[in-house]
């Protein structure tokens, strides 16, 4: 079922914490839920649909009980950090199908406090005998993509560095951002190699925190007195190793993007602001290509020379500073991608980075491991 025009994002909240030593993950979920409900002008008891990732403490069973919700529709489909973007689409579809009226989506986590990292996975994971012995780190699965992209298309470390430079230009205006200092291409290239060809400043931050969204049906959204942000299109996809026919030159955005654009009936040229998942600089570059903002292989030229900086470049990207400079709560960046797109469409971004008369925005995420198995989710949002 098409989700076009049937649902609106009525509430959005980003938790201000970046290190939550004295707050449990469950409480962070609750604080984010309360923040998004207050932003929408709704109360907890209005919620009849609940959505979270598979990482929420105790899953749906515990979270619904803990938060005191009475949902008639639930969904914890997990595709890593992109889950919260796909869940916006799921919520819009559930509302269009009459399954719920007020959907609450929450994310929270404390990887900085709890020092969580690693490849993970249960003992029954199908790759357990084959990949854990290789001991590839998360960053390695992105560095492999970067190296292949450089080989195929001549992409350079300098071009990748421009993605971080743009994020830092935005983050200087965000008082909550972990890294507020403007950096240069040289700063990125001179930072230590973490997994050659990726440097430390090609990598996102590790932060505690969270966020929440409220998605509602049109009749409710129109009575709340908040700017109307319509879920105009959504797409999702999974990409893996294809039985060994590995191709690292593209991501699942090549599928989720066109699906979302078709759903919305718009093209990449119509998008005025884009939140693009930035776990690493290479993630941004590949997604921009796969979403159709430029030709495959031209991503390096597209991002260079400040072209992603609001007010300067051709496509303002991640005006909150993104995962590269602002935050990356729970190691899952999808939620904050939607939140900043909502701010832009409402005209509530920082004045220094606000896109003038922003009517159409995109949020896209890559969850999991870009170089092995990942989820992709795209939403297109419109200000009415």
């Amino acid at each position, binding site marked *: 079922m098409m989700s076009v025009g049937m649902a609106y994002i009525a509430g959005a909240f980003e938790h201000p914490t970046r290190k939550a030593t004295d707050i449990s993950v469950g409480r962070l979920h609750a604080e984010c839920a309360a923040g998004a409900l207050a932003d929408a002008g709704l109360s907890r008891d209005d919620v009849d649909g609940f959505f979270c990732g598979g990482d929420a403490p105790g899953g749906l069973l515990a979270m619904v009980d803990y938060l005191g919700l009475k949902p008639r529709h639930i969904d914890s489909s997990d595709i890593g950090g992109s889950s919260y973007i796909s869940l916006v689409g799921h919520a819009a579809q559930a509302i269009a199908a009459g399954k719920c009226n007020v959907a609450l989506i929450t994310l929270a986590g404390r990887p900085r406090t709890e020092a969580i990292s690693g490849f993970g996975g249960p003992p029954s994971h*199908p790759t357990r005998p084959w990949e854990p012995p290789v*001991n590839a780190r998360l960053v390695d699965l992105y560095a492999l993509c970067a190296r292949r992209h450089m080989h195929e298309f001549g992409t350079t470390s300098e071009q990748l560095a421009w993605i971080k430079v743009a994020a830092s230009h935005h983050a200087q205006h965000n008082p909550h951002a972990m890294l507020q200092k403007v950096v240069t291409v040289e700063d990125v290239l001179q930072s230590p190699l973490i997994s050659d060809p990726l440097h430390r400043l090609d990598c996102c931050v590790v932060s505690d925190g969270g966020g929440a969204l409220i998605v509602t049906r049109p009749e409710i959204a129109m009575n709340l007195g908040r700017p109307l942000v319509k879920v105009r299109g959504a797409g999702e996809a999974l990409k893996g190793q294809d039985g060994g026919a590995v191709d690292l030159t593209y991501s699942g955005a090549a599928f989720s993007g066109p699906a979302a654009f078709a759903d919305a009936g718009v093209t990449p040229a119509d998008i005025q602001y884009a939140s693009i998942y930035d776990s690493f600089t290479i993630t941004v570059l590949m997604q921009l290509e796969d979403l159709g903002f430029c030709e495959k292989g031209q991503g390096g030229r597209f991002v260079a020379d400040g072209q992603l900086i609001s007010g300067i470049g051709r496509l303002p990207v991640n005006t909150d500073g993104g995962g590269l400079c602002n935050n990356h709560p729970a190691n899952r960046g999808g939620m904050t991608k939607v939140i900043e797109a909502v701010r832009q469409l409402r005209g509530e971004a920082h004045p220094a980075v606000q896109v003038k008369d922003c009517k159409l925005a995109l949020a896209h995420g890559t969850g999991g491991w870009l170089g*092995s198995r990942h989820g992709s989710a795209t939403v297109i949002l419109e200000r009415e």
Partner: protein
Amino acid sequence: MQVDQALQQNHPEAMAFSAAAAEGRFMVPTCGDCGKAHWYPRAFCPFCFSFDVTWEAASGRGEIYSYCNGEPAPGTNVIAYVKLAEGPTVLTHILDADPAALRIGLPVKVVLQAAKDGQYFPAFTPS
């Protein structure tokens, strides 16, 4: 070396690989219906979904599809995708490589490695 019992119980189909590897043979799962080899190994063919899959002796030859240099220092932990002569591309290690000589397309040969859980996996070294 004995493969960890929990791994044996969770992945019974993987054990034949280690048994052959312990004798120095590198086996790749291959489909009796469509003829394609695949990786990582499954008991069915990911291309045509046939369950007529057997372990076939592979050449152990391949070339680097992509690589990265990890910690603690460049060259000491090279993670790579290696495209096997038989077709599939494997997430793996490159051992004993001069970091300066690494390149995409570099010919490599298999080195069967026992992990700390006793399960063998294919690593590679420049050939």
